[in-house]
């Protein structure tokens, strides 16, 4: 096992899936010769050639609609939006076509494509490079929405996404791209889409998060154990849609207290859906109001102040203590 960054782990998944399946094609802006602006697709063009690693014109809707056509024909395009902030141009194609083709054609056609997008704040980027808008995609019937949190689960989830017969929006937390390394097995590993994971067991409080926010969430769990003797159960959703509510609703029954964390704006964010399900399925077990530690419902500030916007371990600890003291 090698210790890889998330960029390397995603790159490994692409290499291996392209070796395994000749129909897998990578396309996007600067993904070929340049290896992607984050180097996620580094080396692919040398190995697989420009027919399978396509530098496209600069047009996000074009990349998406073109990929839909390729997927209908039988290829498995993995296309990249350079930043999720430019991915809204893909919304129309994904909503109107990728998400509906199976239903509209009575099952004759389907769209096995992956649309990768780096998302989220914390890397001192320019405007339009820091948003976390997973709710847009997760709200669309027919689309799957996946967000990994570590190198190992990023690799395993991307393999599943590429093999999935339906379109998958794959958000990559760019603040985690090179922030830490993790052992990633060379051999094949997959994680089913639509499955969450308990990454830390505990009895006192349930913390729910995903993506880049898993790090401050786990840090908060450490602080709460060390300073308060509180055992947190921490759940990594990994898939936003189709959401797996089996683990967090069970965990809430055990702990009775829930804090959830995402950097997306609070209103109508994934947290709202999680709370709805907790109310539907775990209501009688809840001991305290559920707290949301999230981005605020504002335009995300430029990078001098982005850490004031993003949830931190301190904010999570504070919310957890209030929940525990209720």
């Amino acid at each position: 096992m090698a210790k890889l960054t998330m960029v390397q782990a995603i790159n490994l998944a692409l290499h291996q899936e392209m070796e395994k399946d000749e129909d897998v094609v990578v396309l996007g802006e600067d993904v070929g010769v340049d290896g992607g602006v984050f180097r996620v697709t580094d080396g692919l063009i040398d190995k697989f050639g420009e027919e399978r690693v396509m530098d496209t014109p600069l047009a996000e809707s074009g990349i998406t609609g073109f990929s839909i056509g390729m997927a209908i024909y039988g290829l498995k395009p993995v296309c990249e939006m350079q930043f999720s902030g430019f991915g809204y141009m893909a919304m129309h194609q994904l909503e109107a076509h990728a998400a509906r083709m199976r239903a509209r054609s009575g099952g004759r056609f389907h769209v096995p494509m992956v649309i990768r997008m780096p998302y989220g704040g914390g890397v001192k980027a320019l405007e339009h490079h820091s948003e976390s808008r997973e709710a847009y995609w997760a709200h669309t019937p027919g689309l799957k929405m996946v967000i990994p949190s570590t190198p190992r689960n990023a690799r395993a989830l991307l393999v599943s996404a590429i093999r999935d017969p339906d379109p998958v929006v794959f958000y990559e937390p760019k603040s985690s791209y090179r922030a830490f390394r993790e052992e990633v097995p060379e051999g094949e590993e997959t994680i089913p889409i639509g499955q969450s994971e308990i990454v830390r067991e505990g009895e006192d409080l349930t913390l729910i998060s995903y993506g880049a926010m898993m790090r401050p969430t786990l840090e908060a769990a450490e602080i709460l154990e060390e300073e308060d003797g509180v055992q947190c159960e921490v759940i990594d959703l990994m898939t936003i849609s189709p959401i797996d509510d089996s683990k967090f609703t069970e965990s809430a029954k055990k702990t009775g207290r829930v804090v959830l964390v995402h950097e997306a704006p609070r209103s109508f964010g994934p947290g709202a859906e999680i709370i709805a399900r907790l109310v539907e399925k775990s209501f009688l077990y809840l001991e305290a109001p559920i707290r949301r530690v999230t981005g605020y419902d504002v335009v995300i500030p430029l990078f001098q102040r982005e850490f004031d916007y993003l949830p931190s371990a301190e904010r999570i600890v504070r919310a957890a203590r209030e929940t525990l003291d209720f």
Partner: protein
Amino acid sequence: MPREKIDLEQDIEYLSILNEKGEIDEDLEPDMKDDLLLDLHRAMLFGRRFDERMLNLQRGGKMGTFAPIKGQEAAQLGAVACLQDEDWLVPSFRETAAEIWRGKRPENILLAYAGFSEGGVIPKGINNLPAAIPVGTQTLHAAGIGYGIKFKGKKQVVMTFFGDGATSEGDFHEALNFAGVFNTPTIFVCQNNQWAISINRAHQTRSKTLAQKAIAYGIPGIQVDGNDVLAVYAAAKEAVERARNGEGPTFIECVTYRMSVHTTADDPKRYRSDEEVEKWEKRDPISRFQKYLKKKDLLSDEEIEEIESEIKEEIKKIVKGWEKKKKELEGRVDMFEGTFAELPAYLVEQKEEFESELPEKTEKPEEPEEPEADEESEE
């Protein structure tokens, strides 16, 4: 330092072969077999009569909104007549006649416009995409399918249709650009019917032609008389041959006219004059083609009448079959299948909730129903 004209190495031609009087330019006349000419005539006539019947059904409240094709029979049929069965069609929402030519069952078209998603089912072996309503979006799929064809080394081509309004959409430009850059076997057919609901062609773009937009993407473009089925066929044939030979995409602008409403929800009297419509009625694609076929001794007035009555009978049967099918489907609802290959847990929950709300529509009959009396024999 020069300041000089740049040679774009491309010109835009206009092609017309058969005029409205039925006169032909013999030098340009395409080499078409008699059977093909007669099949095309029949398909154009069927397209017109089926359209009229649909309008009638819609006005009678039996069908929902749809987009009539009246006047555009030549523009779409002349083009798809150049395709082989294994080729691909990527339509917009005004290609009923082209879809039928390519094997779509008219009953299914009626079903879809009567609000049954079952009508949208594409049978195996027919490479037609479902009709796309968001304007211009489908052109990108044709570029992508073209790439798939090229990638797999197949000899297929893909033809997509759209209107003059679509040429203002970003996706149209991205599609032409991608098709050009990746040299895909894609034929872009614009049915310039002069009106995008109430916005006329002059208001859509300041360009003199739509065809010239091809120049910007470095691909061949041609403008044809879209009411002249021979011109459309000739231009499409060249484009299909180029695509099949690996020479990439073509943009064909068919200058035609939407003789009817945009959709049945539209009232064109608000934005265009009767005189304009009358002017175009004189340029009708079907009557001029009939004149041509009569001159060639391929068709007589008596035969036209015969075909008309055959079509009438055929449509009657189609409508009858559709009404029967509608009754069968009215009692059934299944909106959950088709969202994903496999239903996720929360959709299984919603499906169960739905089935408990409407048990009469979701319970499967235990025993097969008694066979109904044969309607044909009742007559």
